[in-house]
């Protein structure tokens, strides 16, 4: 990973929030993921292959996803299924947008979505895994990037 690539990832995320909600997300201090599992309520994982190998995941709490969903769908109620869906879509958009930087050979898989604390998601991510805290409207979430 290079600084430029990491920055591109973070920019995609902050812009996502800006584009959808009008409020850009803030970056927290990034760090390297250790043994500990650090996920929130909902996590979308995407495998990366082709020009780069590894994976990314985006994980966020219920509250944040509900607030974000409200921006997209207005007052329509969001059930659990919809929150799954949303975190998957968000992960997919982040990874998909990265093709602008990494090119067409940056292949992204269909996202899989998990709930709760998960143990095996790291296997798709190649260490060192960078955890970038994303704060939006005071609510925390993480983007984790692990590419060779």
């Amino acid at each position, binding site marked *: 990973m290079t600084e430029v690539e990491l920055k591109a990832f973070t920019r995609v995320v902050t812009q996502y929030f800006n584009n959808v909600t009008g409020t850009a997300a*803030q970056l927290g*201090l990034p760090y390297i993921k250790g043994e500990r599992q650090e996920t929130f309520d909902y996590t979308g994982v995407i495998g990366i*292959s082709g020009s780069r190998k590894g994976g990314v995941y985006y994980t966020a709490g219920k509250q944040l996803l509900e607030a974000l969903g409200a921006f997209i769908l207005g007052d329509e109620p969001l059930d659990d299924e919809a929150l799954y869906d949303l975190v998957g879509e968000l992960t997919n958009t982040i990874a998909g947008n990265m093709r602008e930087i990494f090119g067409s050979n940056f292949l992204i898989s269909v996202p899989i979505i998990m709930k709760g604390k998960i143990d095996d998601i790291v296997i798709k991510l190649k260490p*060192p895994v960078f955890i970038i805290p994303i704060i939006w409207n005071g609510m925390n979430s993480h983007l984790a990037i692990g590419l060779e």
Partner: protein
Amino acid sequence: MEHSMLDIMWVIMAASLVFVMQAGFAMVESGLTRSKNSINVAIKNLTDLGVSLIVYWLVGFGLMFGLSFSGIFGTSEFFFDSGDAWPMVFCLFQAVFCSTAATIVSGAVAERMRYISYIFATILMALVIYPVFGHWAWGGALQGSASGWLAKLGFVDFAGSTVVHSVGAWVALAILVIIGPRAGRYKSDGTVAPLSGSNIPMAVLGVILLWFGWFGFNGGSTLAASENVAGIILRTCLAGAAGMLSALLIGWPLLKKPDVNLVINGALAGLVAITAGCHAVSAPQSILIGLVAGVLMFASSILLDKLRIDDAVGAIPVHLVAGIWGTLAVAIFGNPDILGTGLSPLEQLGIQGLGITVCGMWSFGVAWLVVKLINAITPIRVSQIDEANGLNKAEHGVSTEIYDLFSVLDQQAKTGDLSLRAPEEPFTEAGQIAGMYNNVMSKLEADTIAKDEYLQILHNVSDGLFLLDQDGVIGPYYAASLNKIFETDQLAGQKLSAVLARFVAEETRAVAEDFLQSCFDSRIAWRHLEKMNPLLDAMAYFDNGQGDFLEKNLQFLFRRLEDGSVVKRLLILVRDTSAEKNLSEEIEKTRELGKQEMEMLYRVMHVEPKTLQEFLDGLHRDLEAINGQFRAGEGNVHERLSQVFRLTHAIKGDAELLQLDFIGGKAEELENRVRELLKVSEPGGEEFLALTLLYSELASASTKLRELLQKWTGFQAQTQSIGFDGYLRQSLASMASRLASRYNKEVSLDASGLSLQFLSPQLRKPIKDILVQFVRNAVFHGFETPDVRGNQGKASAGLIQISGLRQDKMLVVRFRDDGKGLDTGALRQEAVKRGLMDSAKASAMSERDALGLIFQSGFTTVAVADSVAGKGIGMSLVRSLVKETGSSLSMRTKKGAYTEFVLSIPLSGAKQ
């Protein structure tokens, strides 16, 4: 009663028309049944004509029209003969009526009733059932006055809706109930299988003949060439037409198609219904009667199927249901004057109903009893095999060429046996078709065997072999292994470029598409093109649906298949080379790894293993601590950065001590970056990214080193030989001289009086770290260059003395250098310059406080920092280590003479 010649002529003609109806029935019934039974049905029609004529003449006619016994049956005129014209005409006319009734049965029970049984049924009909009921309704007609008991009650059935049609149909119904449905007609799921007629056009012609015959059937029933005949025939036609229309109108929308049976049986139902009252109704009424008959026919045929009564041609709905309706319609519409019964319409209806009921009880009853009896003696139904093979063959040993052809085709479809050949009957159309068919089969059989072998190969070859046509489409036969290689099924007919797009990266796919196009361009020489194969070693990525990719190395090899100068197809071979590729990459990786490890090993070889282990443990802790600072979501960013700065600095120091440049270098990069960041007032997440990146490199270097160390377990053995103290002395000395040479200084280090070996490793490290900082400080700040020292009368090499002394529960470590000492004046000036205090306060500061300045973070007197000094970090690290170990530190200095640190460490264990 006198009959004119005209009457006689008309009745002869009418009888002829009714006779023609036999042809009509034969055509309708055999047309509506399957070809394997068509001959049998036709033969039955002809047979029942002959049998019924003889039997009726013998006995039936007498029973029907002989002198009545109490209105129940006739008793004379058996073996009928007469010298007069009229009785003979009358007998002829009645005989063909009887045959009509008899022949109705054959269609209903078609395709399953044995021929012999059917003859019995015909005899029963012509001998008893028809004549007796006929007597009840029509008896006395020969004598000119009604003598039958029903007729006397006022029952009117002008031409036989009940007497002829219902009687025939009742008998058919009785047999149907006993004989059961045709094989395969009703499925277990309740649906009705259509058993299609063999020759519908013939059935249609049959209906037209029947219709034509009805002119005589109804028109002749006046038994005179009277004026009524014209009206009767017109009304007959109208009712037939109306029946057809109404059946069509109601059936078409319900069945979603104008079904053949609707048209055929609708018309017949209208004709049957008008038969009873055609002499006594008006033309509009006849249409109404026909309309209702068509609807009833349609409804009742559905009902029959619901009851699972399998009427092969629809005889029951047409002859029984429409017949009953027609008989009742006499009472409803009939002109009482013409009927001449003297009954009120309601009474008439009652009598009509009575006649219908009696007819049913008699005809159905007798037929059921007798047929049941016969069936008990000998089955009236053919065997299952005969039914399956068809009654043409089974009953008569005859067949139609077209049927034979169908049998072979059917057999072939069922068994897939390509060696079967159709019988080639010369001079028939079917035979010619069979001949052509056999030719096609012979060719196909030969090709199929060849193809079979080809397919066998394709099924078993492990490489993905296939043909690509000019449109870039994969051919219908390809190696089964291709499915596995491409992780897809049903590749035949798909465009290769579309298939590739699913798993090959876009750039490769685009080039491949160009390449494939060029392959079909014969102007481009193959020898060039062959070398440009973009898929010779292509990566394929298959999304496994679990957030991950399955990766394969695929090798595509191409061959042109040319026809003349045109490239018709490409022969393509695909191999999954992942295993080979992985192996060679693995080997390469291992080799590369081995090289790296050797290099690294070379760099660490000089380090005493136990020390190295301790260094690594410490490094690990420090790295965790640094990441912990990054991770700790809250707190002052500057403070956290300062912590990171100190920790990194310590790592750098340790690494330099052990000459581990690859770690020291990374640590320094990180340290520099932190320093940059400390200058930014509000560093944000983005600025931290680079930091995290550098950190990850440092961490991975540490991990690599640790892995290496674990591998070289042989290190353990060496551990004992030098010991920690020896190693510490050695490494401090060598670090001092290395640093010294960097600044063109000379130094000698004496640590012989120092022993830390008895301490716990937790305590050894901080003390060692402190000593490292002291050494750095001494070399950089303390010592003068050799010439300066010479001028001052000192030895050219600076001297560092380190000693350790155990006192009670304390270890007192003394560190002394004979350098230039600390200049408190310079320290005071620097403090003012940095804005830490104003000059008044600086000069007022005690000597001790001034010296304390060097322990402040970021404080330095050096203008340009490098990796050894000038960052103001070393002494602040010392301060925090002192605090961490619960030690105390004192210092003394004399300008131009020495600097001395005394470190007192409690041995009871460091407080945390």
